[in-house]
């Protein structure tokens, strides 16, 4: 599958990455090679092979439903650019 310049820009936009045209061209080539690899994998006969959800051949451990965390708001908010009344402030997201 060939990757267009516009595809790279769209993927970058979805990931909120600002790419210059030069960078986009670079990624177009880079990602293109990755997709070539995917095309080769797609061509393999996987009939009867169960899809793999995780490379580790083990299953999820579960934890008991217990409250183990304490309030560390002040520590966490020290690295926030703006806080008020205990809230993190961000540029307004609705009109």
């Amino acid at each position: 599958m060939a990757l267009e310049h516009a595809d790279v820009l769209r993927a970058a936009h979805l990931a909120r990455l600002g790419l210059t045209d030069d960078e986009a061209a670079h990624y177009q080539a880079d990602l293109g090679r990755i997709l070539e690899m995917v095309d080769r994998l797609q061509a393999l006969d996987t009939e009867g092979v169960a899809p793999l959800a995780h490379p580790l051949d083990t299953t999820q451990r579960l934890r008991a439903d217990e409250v183990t965390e304490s309030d560390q708001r002040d520590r966490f908010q020290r690295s926030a650019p703006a806080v008020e009344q205990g809230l993190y402030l961000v540029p307004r997201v609705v009109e």
Partner: protein
Amino acid sequence: MQWETVIGLEVHVQLATRSKIFSGASTAFGAEPNTQACAVDLGLPGVLPVLNEQAVAMAVQFGLAIHAEIPEVSVFDRKNYFYPDLPKGYQTSQMYHPIVGPGEVEITLEDGSTRTIRVHHAHLEEDAGKSLHESFSDGMGHAMTGIDLNRAGTPLLEIVSEPDMRSAKEAAAYLKAIHSIVTYLGISDGNMAEGSMRCDVNVSVRPRGQETFGTRAEIKNVNSFRFVERAIEFEVERQIELIEDGGEVVQETRLYDPERDETRSMRTKEEANDYRYFPCPDLLPVVLDGAYVDHLRETLPELPADKRARFQDGLGLSAYDAGVLSASREMAEYFEAVKDACGDAKQAANWVQGELSGALNREGLAIGDSPVSARQLGELITRVMDDTINGKAAKQVFQALWNGQGESADAVIEAKGLKQVTDTAAIEAMIDQVIADSPAQVAQYRDAEPDKRGKMIGYFVGQVMKASRGTANPQQVNALLKEKLDALC
């Protein structure tokens, strides 16, 4: 043209775990902002999620309750999007291998008839934080939004129905059935006002008889049974008018505004959502062995549909009574305790649905807050059934118990002297007195046509009951009065 409505619901249920789905932070409601948002919930670098066993158990219990398939393996995926209340930049959810497979929910309509609504699947995911768009601003006067991440990471079970509902009433009945199942199971408090249950509604219309579905609109975040009904009714009318005027329904997300009772288009996004789901590398596949699922199956309580059937077929209640009394676990437990205390299901049903529900409604109380306990009410009914008190006195006893004027029905009966007078001699003495005191009425009775006398006897009954302060046995009073008055004619 005849139109048919097609509705599917996505119900988000907050699971009643103590801690979050992937972290040990508390899920308690109403804490100070961000005091229950830990490093995992904030998506700080280097943290790893660990799945809460209780959230898994609750999801499986729900699946078993709707007779769903429980797949052996389920997988968590990342749903990627940017919003300030989602600090990680993705929501951990289940897209391709949900924890609960296809199942079905039985709904009961107002006329008592039932229908089965298919559930496509139910999956586990984490809730996002809350945005507060109040009057915050930065130093330069730019408006800011406040973010509280206490809710971030709260476990949600998203229950996705098939498009099986055909009216607003069916959708509301389905939502009520889900509410009743999750509260019976105790996996959620079901508090819609606090957002423990939220609902997205997919609505479309099509000409009656047409196979293919019309284009649907999705109404987001409807948070009460009543609003679900009203939002659908408005939306159906809007779509039909649009099509009949030559327009076309566009697939979009709309918001229901309860104050104006209408749905409005949310700002159309410049591009369609592209969540780029992929399996979450931080979480391994969840494997449930058969013994674990069987153990959960054994611990399931009796569910609303089974209880309703038992109330109707086993206890002989009407379909309506059985439906109302099994609608919530609290109501069902209260009713059964009353029934056990008095030994008569129909009397228990009448009292719980009549006097008690009336009083609760007047005071805006839930059954759990009833000042009259099930044992007290059961004892009161027993005293009516064994003729210790008559129906009129029973209402006084109920009122006294409601007001806290007595520990038990017997104590109130004793204190207020409400014990029914069944002693014939005592009743006769009262009747003789009333007849002696009412010469004019006795004369009228005597002069009346015999077929009119039946009605006229009411006056005398009233007087005798008054003389007995309501405690005389009304049947005896009636019979003895008739005998004595007719003897005078």
